[in-house]
């Protein structure tokens, strides 16, 4: 059974309380259609469990098949440097069909990030090491495609549909009692 190797740290992007009963970690790729399809299901799960759940997202760009995946991940990191990671994250998934430099610039502008800052960060690969570090942590944890979810450190081998994720999360909640 594959388990999450790098624990959640302050370098992660986390939504919800750090000490929540259940931690859901997703390894995802912004150009992966399955990840975009999973996105609303994750949001439903977050809404359902509220403060009992925290959700962390890590990058797992499959660059050989998704040419914009790496830049999109780095864009999200630029936004994170402005404490706007989640807005960029949602914007990328919700507009996946438009993924590419014009969308990156537009989403960044909406968050008050200048074209110049974004382009420079992408050209210099400022956040490439962070993205790679997420990716390698995922590889060592047994991520075998995107999206891959871990619930309290254990790989979730069910689907990303809301009812499957919710049922798996329930199991962990009950296991704690």
């Amino acid at each position, binding site marked *: 059974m*594959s388990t999450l190797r790098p624990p959640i740290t302050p370098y992660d992007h986390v939504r919800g309380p750090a000490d929540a009963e259940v931690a859901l970690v997703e390894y995802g790729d912004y150009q992966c259609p399955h990840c975009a399809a999973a996105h609303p299901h994750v949001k439903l799960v977050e809404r359902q469990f509220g403060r009992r759940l925290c959700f962390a997202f890590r990058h797992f760009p*499959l660059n*050989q*098949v998704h040419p914009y995946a790496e830049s999109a991940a780095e864009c999200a990191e630029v936004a994170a440097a402005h404490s706007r990671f989640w807005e960029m994250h949602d914007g990328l998934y919700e507009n996946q069909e438009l993924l590419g430099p014009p969308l990156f610039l537009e989403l960044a502008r909406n968050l008050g990030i200048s074209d110049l800052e974004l382009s420079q960060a992408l050209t210099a690969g400022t956040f490439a090491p962070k993205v790679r570090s997420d990716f390698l942590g995922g590889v*060592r944890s047994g*991520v*075998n495609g995107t999206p891959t979810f871990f619930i309290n450190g254990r790989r979730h*081998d069910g689907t990303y549909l809301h009812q499957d994720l919710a049922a798996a999360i329930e199991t962990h909640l009950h296991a704690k009692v």
Partner: protein
Amino acid sequence: MGQILPAGATAPDFELHVTPDQMLSLNDLKGKPVIMAFYPADWSPVCGDQMGLYNEVLSEFRKYDAELLGISVDGAWCHEAFAKDRHLHFPLLADFEPKGAVAKSYGAYREGEGVSERALFVIDQNGVIFWSYRSPIAVNPGADGILDALERLQPHGASHEHTTAAHHTV
């Protein structure tokens, strides 16, 4: 299902087409760790993901000086088209004639379906199997087992966490 060759067994040598006009033998790679990834078929979704994942992890395998070989019963022309479509940067071996002979020699052939198992072997510098793993046919095994094995094989490799050596044997 039979047993795949375990750690400690000598890796059977082979010579197979790696492109329509080139052959590759295991002996050619002596001195380096070799990763053999048997998979059932080009183009099927799970295999695609598995080979695609390994493609992304190649630079990590290379930190251990390891060579990755994908292998299935598909022919060399099929492999060529598949590798081109998925931008694969490692060789795919055609275990095509006699069909599945190499898979059989590793205990990784599925007689009923006529395809190889989804099985992984890490072979050491001297041609001895160091680690092997058979995954359920529909499950992409990921790359964590391979990297763990390479790490134990070469403690001076890319990473420094080689304290888990004892309890990982298959």
